[in-house]
Structures are given as C-alpha cells and as structure tokens.
C-alpha cells in the first residue's frame, strides 16, 4: 500500500544534487536575450518613442515598440477556456502598450546577443510621456471624474449573492450586530525562481516555448490566442519549476518570447525577469477593503453575514474578475447555516497587476470574516472558539450557495484538536488582566476551501500509464509538479491501484503539450483531487490489461488473477505467483505472435468539488513599546480528507503557514498614493520572512474520508495560507486589547494603533 505513507519524493535526488534542470538551466547556443523598456510613470501615454540609438548599439538584434506588435488584445488569466461566451476572461492586454497603466508597464522590448547589451540598449530607448492622473486605490479609481484606466471604466466586475435566506430578516432575529472595516495589503508570491521563458522554432510552422509555468496547456492556448496562430502549432514545455504560488498561473512572458522568436526567424529568444521586475511586472495578491456585518443571537447562533468588499486588481484584469466570486463563495461552506450576502466589486488601479495567489482571494475575505467572528463572540461574552464550534459546518450541512451537501467535514474536530494542541482553556485564563510591556495573547481562525474550480470551470485531468519491458511502469500526467510533490502523490496512487511498488513507478516530470495528456495545471488546490480519478482509472485499466494478457499467456481466466507487489498472483492465493510482471512485460513487447505495448490513457472530467476545512491557533507575545509580535506557538489543523503523503502534506502546511505569517506581520508592496511609485521591489525592502522571522510551525490533520475523492482526499495546497493572519490579529487583540483591522501588522502599523490606544 503506497497511499498514506511517505516514500521518498520522486524528484528528491535530482533536487539535492543540483541536477534538476529549471528553465534557466536549459540555455541554447545562439540564444538572444530580450529586455523590456518599462514606463517610469504609473499612468500616461507615450507621445514619442525613439529607438534609433538602441538599434545601432553593437550586439542589438532588434527593438520593437508598442507600434510594432499585433493590435490584438488577449487575456492572461490561467483559466481553462470557457465555451460560454459570458464566462470568458477579460482581454485587456496587448504585447506592448502605448497607454501605460502602472510604473513598469511595457512600452518596448530590446533583443540583444547578451544580457548586458540588452540592459544598455534599454537605457538608450528614449520615450516621452504625457502624464495622466494616477489612481492607486478604490477611493480614487471609482470616483466619477477619475479618467478610465481601460476603455469601459475602472470597474471590471462585481459579484453578488444572498443565500440561506434574507439578510434583513436574519439580522432582525439577531441580538447583536457587529460591523467593522478591514483592509489587506498588496503582497507578492516571492517564488525563488523568477519568471523565465524562451522560445525557438525547429521548422517554419511550429514554435516551442520552454517556460516556468504552472499551466502548460493553458499557456499553449493563450500564446495561440495572443499571436493569432493555431494552438496546435504552439508547443509548451515545462521543466522543473522553482515555485509558483499562483504567479505562474498566468501567462506573462510566453506570448512575447514566441512573438520575438517568430519575428527573428526562429532563433531562440529568452526573457528572464530579474527580481526587481518580477516584483512589479508579474502578479501580486489583490489588496482589499471590506466592510462586514455579522448578526448573532445571545446564545451564539450566527444568523447572518453581510460582506461588502472592494478588490484592487491593478493595471490589468488578469484573474481579477474571478477572484472575489471564488473567494466569497467559500464562506458558504464554512458557515453554511447562516444567511450570507456578498457584494464584491473589483476595480482597476495604477498599480502592479494582481492575479492568482495561493488561496485565490480567500485569505483576504476570511481575514475580515474571522476578525469579525472574534468581535461577534466578544459582543455576547462567549469564548470565540466555542462560538465558532457552534456555527461552523458539519457533515450533512447543505452549502446554501451551491445547494450541495457537505459529504465529509472535520471542522469541529479540527477546532477541538487545536484547542488541545495550544492549551486554549488554560492559557485563556492565564492571559487575563495582563499589564506591562510584554503581553501574551491567543487567537484562532478557521476556513473552508474548495478542491478545484468546478462548476465555475471544467475540471479535466489526464493520466497515461505505460508498462515498460522491465515490469516498471511509466506515469505521464498533464498536471504539473511545481514543488508541492504532485508527481510523487500520483505515483503513490498508481502504485496503490495497480499493485506495483512505488519504486517501480516512474514519472515524467516535464510536461510537454505535444506529448503529455491534457490537464489544465497546478492551481485551485485541484490536482490531487481531480487527477486522482484519472490515475485510478488508468491504473485499473492497465491492471485489467495485464491480467488479461497474463491469462492469455498462462491459460488462466483473468478473474482468477490479481496484481500484487509487482507479481501476477492468484486472486484467492495471493502468495502464489503466477508470473512476475517483468516476464509478462517482456512477452507483451517481444513475443512475435501476440501482444503489443500495454498502456492506459485516461482523460477524466471531475464533476464534484468537495470542501476542505481547517484552522490556525496561535499563542503570541507582544512587546508593546517595540511594536513587535513574537509568535510562541502556532498550529494549523486541517481536514483535507485522507492524507496521501503525510510528510509532503506537512510541508504544504508549513509553507502556507509561513506565507500567512508573512502576510500578517511583514509583507507589503509599498506604493506611493499619489504617484503610483513602487518603493520596495526587491527582497531587501520587501520583507519576506527569513528563517529568523518564522517560529517553529505546528501541523496536525483530522483525516476524514471524502467519498468523491479518488482516494478519500481533498484539497491542501493553498488552504494553510488562509487563516494565520486573522488568528494572529485575534491574538494581538487578546494580548493588548487593541483591535487592528488591517494587515500587514508591521511595527509601523502597530505603532499607529498602540499610540492611538494610548498604550505607548
């Protein structure tokens, strides 16, 4: 049995020996380097552009400006294509632009023989701009007299629903109504590998794009759309990738690399962003402002939740039109017995483009909700953990929005488990009535998340299994390994169902759209959930073929046979080997009269989407005069169904927790309110936590068995990132009595609040 164990990752040795090759490690002879000419202003129009000097610099092969690129707008969001024309992504981007919309927007691109020449040439491109007024936030972007950032105005989308009843009526039944305003900042993914892509042509028709992408098959489609070429002529190859976290669920460099390569006769052209450009010109997390109301009865029944939220998508739509709908809907699985009303507005602004980032808007929405739950509990003098336990989802509840039953739910068990782990009851008493500079506090917050994007998008996954001559099996999947360990998890599943040892399952880690089965890629914490049925079915099919073939070889009936630990055995006598698999395999390949390569190739569409659950518990100390928070203990407890690989699962939790701590206490892209200037586009000034800033991280699982999951499993990749911030905020409130409704709670933020509260 392979599922539920922690075998060595398939890519572990490649990665610890430095042999794992990432996009930048696959250079080609004669490769040219492209570098963008970026706008120094946040909003305006190019009046004049002169590339003469740059063109004549030795080593420069070409310079293209916004006037030289196709007049074709395309969408970059890494969503599956939608057959419904009302559900398509917003096509608001050209390869280059004369209307610049954020500091860093791309007006031209230089191609040179080496990086240094490209950098020098960029300096030589002279651009004159007409400046427009800059709007960096909702207040300015949504004012009537603010000039539109795109034709059609600055609102790109809104999402509304009211489910579980009528909000007004629910509030009438409530004894207390609490309300607060929340704010979350712009944060960035900070995968250690920056974006990197190169393109080349082997013939006159087909273009090959090698890229650090989470979504090779979607990327193929978008390159085709952007350049108006048939999708089949584009081949996208994804080597190892150094982290994505959603930032590579967007098609950012690939269409340009393909365009340049085609323009330059098929020679390889590479675009690799330095960290500084990666910070401003890829994607970020949407900053939000929300106003949330909650109504509760005296005895702690949450009656209604009214969420109004503004989400800032920056200069281009990217995923903006989808994120708030996706994030808002998740609250319905968390508090399914409450009336929930959502009104979300997403708008443009003259700041870097926000896109997908780990948990897709949920951390922002849940921050507000879980801060307000703390407030609601306090308003009725109830312990906030008890209040949550009273109101969160239980198995059998009906999600009022999706009208689907929650088939597995360990939310209450997660909260009870966390209560024990952190020592909630004893510490709650101990931390009462503190004085002095150092004060301790406890906090909790909980979440629900989806397992994929169905029914908003198609959920399609592909798996192919091939029996090799030596009795080992190759697994090809369309889903992408981006560090989370999906290759390994799929091998475990294949081994489990097929009856072959994990070590005898090999995986092709590179996705190549010309070869790999179709799958839309790594996002939405979908892969283990939606790929599992494909792998399972492929394994069942291959196993059936192997048994049938063995029956043919041996004269047995297939039904009497089974495949266990790499041997074909008698089903009723598993200790009795009929034939070892390698013998069967050799016969399939090389017997002159019978057989042929045994394969199974499955494409599977999942039509369920099960919610996962979990929570964060934190015990922290606040040094009030220093305006600093020190986390003493922090735990995430998750219900992600059956855990496929406990060690890798814990790894997802640790990483998500740390990213959540970063978002809560450290990280914010700082943008000047008036000019849109970005102050901290580097890893020194943008405070991604180092290991000195992250405490020991605790993690636990409540294993339920999800009936719709191929192996009882549900989502896990993104969820750990959702609740650290509200849990930490609630603990800071607990410690200091100061309610901070914004993140990040950096020392600068804490200073403002502590000073206002008279603590310092």
């Amino acid at each position, binding site marked *: 049995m392979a599922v539920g164990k*922690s075998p*060595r*990752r398939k*890519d*572990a*040795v*490649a*990665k*610890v*020996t*430095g*042999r*794992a*090759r*990432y996009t*930048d*490690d696959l250079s080609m002879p004669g490769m040219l380097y492209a570098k963008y000419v970026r706008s120094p202003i946040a909003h305006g129009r190019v009046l004049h552009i002169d590339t003469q000097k740059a063109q004549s610099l030795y080593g420069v092969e070409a310079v293209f400006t916004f006037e030289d690129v196709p007049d074709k707008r395309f969408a970059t969001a890494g969503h599956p294509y939608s057959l419904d024309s009302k559900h398509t992504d917003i096509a608001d981007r050209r390869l280059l632009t004369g209307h610049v919309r954020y500091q860093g927007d791309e007006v031209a691109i230089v191609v040179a023989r080496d990086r*240094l020449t490209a950098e020098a040439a960029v300096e030589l491109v002279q651009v004159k701009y007409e400046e427009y007024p800059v709007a960096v936030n909702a207040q300015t972007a949504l004012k009537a007299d603010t000039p539109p950032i795109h034709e059609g105005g600055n609102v790109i989308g809104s999402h509304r629903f009211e489910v579980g009843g009528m909000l007004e009526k629910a509030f009438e039944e409530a004894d207390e109504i609490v309300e607060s305003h929340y704010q979350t900042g712009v944060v960035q*993914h*900070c*995968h*250690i*590998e*920056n974006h990197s892509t190169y393109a080349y042509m082997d013939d006159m028709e087909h273009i090959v794009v090698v890229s650090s992408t989470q979504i090779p098959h979607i990327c193929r489609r978008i390159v085709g759309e952007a350049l108006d070429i048939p999708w089949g002529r584009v081949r996208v190859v994804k080597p*190892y*990738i*150094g*982290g994505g*976290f959603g930032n590579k669920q967007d098609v950012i460099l690939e269409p340009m690399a393909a365009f340049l390569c085609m323009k330059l006769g098929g020679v390889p052209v590479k675009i690799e962003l*330095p*960290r500084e450009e990666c910070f401003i010109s890829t994607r970020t997390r949407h900053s939000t402002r929300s106003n949330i109301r909650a109504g509760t009865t005296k005895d702690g029944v949450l009656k209604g939740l009214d969420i109004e939220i503004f989400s800032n998508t920056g200069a281009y739509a990217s995923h903006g039109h989808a994120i708030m709908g996706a994030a808002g809907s998740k609250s319905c699985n968390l508090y399914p017995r409450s009336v929930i009303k959502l009104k979300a507005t997403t708008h443009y602004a003259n700041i870097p483009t926000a896109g997908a980032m780990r948990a897709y808007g949920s951390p922002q929405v849940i921050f507000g909700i879980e801060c307000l739950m703390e407030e609601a509990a306090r308003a009725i003098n109830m312990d906030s953990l008890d209040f949550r336990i009273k109101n969160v989802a239980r198995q059998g509840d009906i999600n009022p929005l999706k009208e689907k039953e929650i088939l597995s739910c360990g939310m209450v068990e997660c909260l009870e488990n966390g209560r024990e782990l952190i020592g909630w009851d004893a510490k709650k008493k101990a931390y009462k009535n503190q004085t002095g500079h150092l004060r301790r506090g406890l906090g909790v917050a909980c979440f629900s998340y989806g397992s994929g994007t169905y029914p908003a998008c198609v959920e399609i996954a592909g798996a192919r299994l091939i029996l090799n001559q030596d009795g080992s099996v190759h697994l090809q999947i369309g889903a992408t390994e*981006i*560090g*989370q*360990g999906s290759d390994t998890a799929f091998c475990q599943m294949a081994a489990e169902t097929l009856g072959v040892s994990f070590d005898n399952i090999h995986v092709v880690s590179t996705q190549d759209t010309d070869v790999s089965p179709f799958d839309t890629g790594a996002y939405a914490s979908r892969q283990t959930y939606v790929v599992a049925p494909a792998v399972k079915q492929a394994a069942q099919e291959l196993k059936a073929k192997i048994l049938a073939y063995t029956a043919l070889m041996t004269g047995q009936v297939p039904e009497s046979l089974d495949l266990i630990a790499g041997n074909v055995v008698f089903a009723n006598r598993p200790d009795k080997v009929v034939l070892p698999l390698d013998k069967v395999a050799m016969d399939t390949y090389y017997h002159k009269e019978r057989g042929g390569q045994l394969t199974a190739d499955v494409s599977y569409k999942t039509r369920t989407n099960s919610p996962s659950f979990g929570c964060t518990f934190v015990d922290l100390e606040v040094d009030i005069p220093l305006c600093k928070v020190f986390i003493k203990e922090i735990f995430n407890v998750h219900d992600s169904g059956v855990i496929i690989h406990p*060690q*890798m699962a*814990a*790894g997802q939790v*640790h*990483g*998500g*927790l*740390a*990213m959540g*701590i970063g978002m809560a206490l450290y990280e914010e892209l700082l943008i000047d309110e008036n000019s849109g200037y970005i102050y901290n586009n*580097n*890893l*020194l000034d943008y405070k*991604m936590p*180092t*290991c*000195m800033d*992250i405490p*020991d*991280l605790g993690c636990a699982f409540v294993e339920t068995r999800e009936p719709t999951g191929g192996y009882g499993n549900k989502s896990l990749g993104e969820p750990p990132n959702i609740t650290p911030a509200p849990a930490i905020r609630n603990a800071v409130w607990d410690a200091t009595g100061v309610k901070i409704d914004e993140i990040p709670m950096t020392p600068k933020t804490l200073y403002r609040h502590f000073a206002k509260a008279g603590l310092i």
Partner: protein
Amino acid sequence: MQKEITCTINEKQYVLSVDVRKSLLDILRDLGITSVKEGCGVGECGACTVLIDEIPADSCITLAVWADGKTIRTVEGESANGQLSKVQQAYIDAGAVQCGFCTPGMIMTTTAFVEKHKDCKVSREDIRKGHAGNLCRCTGYETIISAVEMCLKDSDNNDSGKN
C-alpha cells in the same frame, strides 16, 4: 577585459580566462554548474550560495576573478559514487525539499554550518541564525531546520560533508 585565474571547483583544477565583469555565479553556470541559481543577483536570497575555501558566499556578488587560487564547492560535488552527502540525505529524510530552487544553496550553507558546529551544542535558534541568508518560500524553514538538526545529531564521529 580577460584575466586568467586558477581555481579548484568540486575537486577539479581549472585554469580559466574570465571576463572581469563576470560574477562567480556567471562563470560557474557557464561551466555547466547550474545548481548555482540566481534568485535576486544582489545577495538577498542565497540561492547562489557556494563555499569559497569552505566559507559560504553569495556567488552573485562575488567577482569571478576573486576565485583565483580558491577552492570552490557547489552541491554538484557533494555526492560521490552515487552516494549522497549526509546533508543531502538529511534534506530528503526531513522532507526539506519542495520546489528545489533554494535547495542547492541552502545545502551548501548547511554543509558549512554542520562542519563548523560538529562539536558544538546547537539550538534551533543557532541554526536559524546560520541559515538566515537563504530564503525559502515553500517550506517555512521548518523541515530545513530539522534537516540541519539531523545532520548535527549524526555528525558525532565523522565529518558531515562527504561520505
């Protein structure tokens, strides 16, 4: 401008004519030693960490000419004859490998750290301080610190770097 330098990289002698404008990172990658990754180019992320005369350095802000007369170690040289180093093995056993991009640099930092502290009592805080120059976005550092602890526990009777 070219300068001739002589150095040892992963126990091999090299006589190289290097462009004085290049970083050590540049020339290592030119030689095919691509475990050395560029994550920032300014010594903030540590993905390009190599050992220069056994001391961890960010090769992105080390001029290539400074390698003259030095001994350089990268993760490519840490396993021999199909045998992983203790540190490499500990990273696997602790589950400290995810996307793998920070891994080679992180392993080199650990390798030097473990060699330096093999006879010392070391806390998780000490390990943190010793690894603060290597950023990782996947692991939250939890399993990396555990991997270092495993190396230190195992390093009682021989040096930890190579088998």
